[in-house]
């Protein structure tokens, strides 16, 4: 087992355990905090996949912004932890079945696909490649993303603002 594999399995464990806690934890704060290792694990995977720029953004936005936002809201709404009330709804068994089925389905199908060979090696410094991509074919996506952010923020502020 080489280092890559070792790193992969460690990160995978981190992601999955974190994810499980996010999903299972009765204490919502715990759940939110568990997001951090999960998202960081995913960031680690990005490193393994040579996606350094994505890793950076993942850590910045996800871990830095989203998780904090979520925690905020939990603290604002459910009396900090949400422990007072039942967190799980009545469709657990069904959900388990559906999710299990879906995962098995994904495995059954995806593991049989003869995934296409790479058209070449990754470019040496891929933040640059990402940048080129963003500026050349995906300039429109880039610009639209900024519009989306603008619209979301404006709307979120209007909605979230407490009115007199």
């Amino acid at each position, binding site marked *: 087992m080489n280092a890559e594999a070792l790193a992969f399995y460690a990160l995978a464990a981190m992601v999955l355990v974190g*994810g499980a806690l996010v999903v299972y934890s009765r204490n919502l704060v715990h759940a939110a905090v568990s*997001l951090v290792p999960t998202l960081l694990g995913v960031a680690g995977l990005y490193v393994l996949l040579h996606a350094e720029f994505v890793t950076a953004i993942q850590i910045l936005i996800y871990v830095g912004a989203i998780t904090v936002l979520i925690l905020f809201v939990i603290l604002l709404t459910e009396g900090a932890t949400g422990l007072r009330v039942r967190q799980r709804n009545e469709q657990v068994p069904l959900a388990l079945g559906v999710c299990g089925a879906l995962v098995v389905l994904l495995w059954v199908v995806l593991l049989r696909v003869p995934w296409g060979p790479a058209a070449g090696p990754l470019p040496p410094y891929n933040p640059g490649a990402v940048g080129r991509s963003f500026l050349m074919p995906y300039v429109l996506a880039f610009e639209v993303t900024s519009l989306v952010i603008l619209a979301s923020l404006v709307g979120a502020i209007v909605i979230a603002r407490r009115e007199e």
Partner: protein
Amino acid sequence: MIGLPHYLVLSSLLFGMGLYGVLTRRNAVAILMGIELMLNAANVNFVAFTKFVDPTFVRGHVAALVIITLAACEAAVGLALIINAYRHLETVNVDQVDLLKG
């Protein structure tokens, strides 16, 4: 050697977990967290595919970046809606928010 299937299995498990969270949580914020897991699963796929299938144009990276941004926007919008609803309905449990049904 860690290949594409490894990543796919991992992402599918993450996806399933996220979906499970979405499906079993009563709390809207918790559901949102499940959704974030699903989006991360998709992102893992995108980035993994970039390496193994489309290394030249790194479109997967672009997609992942876009999705991360969208996730942020969703979180902002969603949490705003949830907070506002909490102010008037005094709950964030989805099954207690049921003026509309039938």
